[in-house]
């Protein structure tokens, strides 16, 4: 019974990893690709790690598997943030379909970021 | 007495570490010299031990061979260690006078002794992979020493030295890996027994990898280019240390593996080594003639004379091998002396470019003597140590009917003599050119180590028997590996 749970977890995990991979290929620009890895990727890995925890039914193994998951959850968004920000700063333009870009023009020469007049923004939308 | 065998390792290591840990300038200087003297003493003790009791082996970590790492001292190893101690002492003395606070602040003493740590490890280890590690130790230490101070020339030379060394490193690694894969062994004595089961053609091909990897270290044709590109760059004492020790490690490794492991097809491998030796000798000597700068000239001489050491290995008779060993030992002293001397001249005249030098014979006659002793020794003239080295090789070559290489060896002797003669004429005899720099200050304690080495080459020349008979003992052991294997593995072939 537990075995089946493991199989399902793994299967779904692999599925999401596939989604992440395909997303990285198919998505139109960098920022959208990062969505694929940071979400589907995290989920996919997470499911497989949970499968490991379930499979061994040992506290020490589960602890390691779940802390791995925790680490990924901790680090993946930071990495995505750093990369997205750097890419934007270096001039990687969002794809043409991009609906709105409120960040445009707000980075100063020394990479400091201005805040925007939120009222004005809300009006624009 | 197993500690005696690891002493040449522990002394420089401890010195190097203490230099890293103790920041005081005085402490470092004292350690720098004490460590070198200690190494010399350790080398003497080890040689005495080997003399008395034959080949020594110790199983590091007490794991029996071939499973752990074995350290072995036969005559060859012990002699190499001893002479490296001599060079170390000379360079340490020079360094005491030469070093400024800046270089000491950059860790000169620690680096120097860690270099010696690697060199002696390489001389003493009985394990091929372990040898790789020692090579890397001495390599990295030498990289850092080479760029210490960071002048443009040093960086330009350092880049080339580094690049080629990387290549040799990886080559050596691959060679060890392949040999391990073909035999399952890493211990050199174990390898000597197991290579018999390897397909001979494959074994020859593997031996070629070692030839290239060690040939790069030894700077033989066609792998020598890095040496003249880099050795002239660092301060003289560092060049001297390198010239004295580093290429000899390559030569040592070649001698070791091509007497212990790859002896199945000497008709091919060792003939090839002879060709390599011949080209190295000739091209090195020729290119030395084209040099107008002393240290670059010496670098080409260094390359050329590596050929002599390979010549003995290629001929592979007891006398020839003894010649190789003796040549290597002699050359360590002589070339270190010459590079140090270049340092003295640099200090006196502010340059080592021959055309801008001159006029030293009158005011510095003893300096002329200090040049002539090692210079003529390098050319193989009596009554200096270099003569016996060349004599032995020539005699061995004639005995073995290898007339071609003997002719090359003699010709190169003449070219070397010409080269040294030209240097002598330019630096000492020629009038100082207009505006030549007047000697500032003086040379201070820098002269002492050069003098010691120069006297040593003369002393060995006059009384060659001890070192020659030791070299012969080394050669006998090399040609009869059973003793080595017995000492390491405790079994006979």
């Amino acid at each position, binding site marked *: 019974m537990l075995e089946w749970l493991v199989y399902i977890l793994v299967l779904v995990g692999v599925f999401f990893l596939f989604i992440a991979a395909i997303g990285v290929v198919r998505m139109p620009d960098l920022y959208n690709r990062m969505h694929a890895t940071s979400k589907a990727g995290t989920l996919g890995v997470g499911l497989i790690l949970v499968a490991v925890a379930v499979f061994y039914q040992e506290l020490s193994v589960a602890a390691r598997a779940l802390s791995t998951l925790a680490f990924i959850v901790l680090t993946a968004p930071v990495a995505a943030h750093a990369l997205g920000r750097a890419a934007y700063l270096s001039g990687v333009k969002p794809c043409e379909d991009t609906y709105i870009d409120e960040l445009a023009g707000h980075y100063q020469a020394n990479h400091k970021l201005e805040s925007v007049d939120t009222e004005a923004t809300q009006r624009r939308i | 007495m197993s500690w005696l065998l690891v002493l040449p390792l522990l002394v420089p290591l401890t010195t190097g570490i203490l230099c890293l840990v103790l920041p005081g300038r005085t402490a470092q200087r004292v350690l720098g010299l004490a460590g070198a003297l200690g190494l010399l003493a350790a080398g003497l003790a080890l040689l005495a031990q080997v003399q008395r009791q034959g080949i020594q082996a110790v199983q590091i970590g007490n794991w029996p061979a071939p499973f752990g790492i074995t350290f072995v001292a036969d005559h060859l190893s012990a002699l190499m260690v001893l002479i490296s101690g001599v060079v170390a002492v000379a360079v340490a003395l020079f360094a005491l006078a030469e070093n400024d606070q800046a270089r000491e602040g950059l860790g000169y003493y620690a680096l120097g002794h860690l270099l010696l740590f690697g060199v002696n490890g390489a001389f003493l280890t009985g394990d091929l992979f372990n040898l790789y590690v020692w090579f890397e130790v001495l390599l990295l230490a030498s990289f850092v020493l080479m760029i210490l101070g960071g002048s443009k020339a040093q960086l330009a030379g350092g880049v080339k030295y580094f690049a080629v060394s990387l290549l040799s*490193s*990886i080559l050596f690694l691959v060679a*060890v890996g392949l040999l*391990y894969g*073909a035999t399952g062994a890493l211990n050199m004595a174990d390898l000597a027994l197991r290579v018999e089961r390897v397909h001979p053609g494959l074994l020859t091909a593997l031996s070629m990898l070692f030839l290239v990897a060690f040939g790069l270290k030894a700077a033989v044709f066609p792998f020598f280019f890095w040496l*003249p590109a880099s050795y002239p760059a660092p301060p003289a004492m560092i060049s001297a240390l390198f010239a004295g020790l580093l290429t000899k490690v390559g030569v040592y490794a070649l001698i070791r593996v091509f007497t212990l492991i790859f002896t199945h097809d000497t008709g091919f491998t060792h003939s090839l080594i002879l060709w390599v030796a011949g080209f190295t000798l000739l091209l090195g000597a020729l290119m030395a003639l084209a040099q107008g700068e002393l240290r670059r000239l010496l670098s080409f001489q260094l390359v050329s004379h590596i050929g002599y050491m390979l010549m003995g290995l290629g001929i592979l008779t007891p006398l020839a091998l003894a010649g190789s060993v003796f040549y290597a030992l002699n050359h360590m002293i002589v070339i270190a002396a010459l590079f140090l001397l270049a340092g003295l001249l640099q200090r006196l005249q502010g340059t080592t470019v021959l055309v*801008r030098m001159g006029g030293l014979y009158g005011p510095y006659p003893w300096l002329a003597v200090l040049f002539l002793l090692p210079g003529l020794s390098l050319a193989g003239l009596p009554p200096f140590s270099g003569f016996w080295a060349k004599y032995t090789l020539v005699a061995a070559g004639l005995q073995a009917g290898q007339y071609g290489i003997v002719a090359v060896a003699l010709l190169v002797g003449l070219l070397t003599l010409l080269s040294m*003669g030209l240097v002598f004429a330019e630096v000492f005899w020629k009038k100082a050119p207009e505006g030549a720099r007047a000697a500032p200050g003086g040379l201070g304690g820098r002269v002492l180590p050069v003098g010691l080495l120069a006297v040593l080459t003369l002393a060995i020349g006059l009384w060659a028997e001890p070192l020659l008979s030791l070299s012969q003992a080394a050669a006998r052991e090399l040609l009869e590996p059973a003793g080595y294997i017995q000492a390491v593995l405790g079994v006979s072939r």
Partner: protein
Amino acid sequence: MEILLAFLVGGLAAVGVYLMLRPHLIQFLIGFLVLGNAANLLIFTAGRLGSQFPPLVQPSGAVLEPYANPLPQALILTAIVIGFALAAFGIVLFYRAQQALGTLNAETILEAPDVSPAPSPVDELPTEGVRR
């Protein structure tokens, strides 16, 4: 598997060598790293493959067979570390060389900026007009 690895190692070695022969020294360094990977795979293969278990002794004291040959692993670990140290040093060396020499072109880093005439046994070296 071993045979495939032999071909992969050869292929990686070719790529590494090709990069090492490029004129830019950073490419040389990258080539070295590729070659290092190839070398590590080579050593790994040299210890033979086909294992099913890692070389860990079970708490019971037994080693599950066939275990992966631990020796090449130890050798590779050492080699990786050394290679890494070399690479780290090299990266900084190249950086400094670029700063000091203004180039990292393997063909233009000169080794004898001071080209001085060699003395000859039959013709005198010019002593006039020698810049010091």
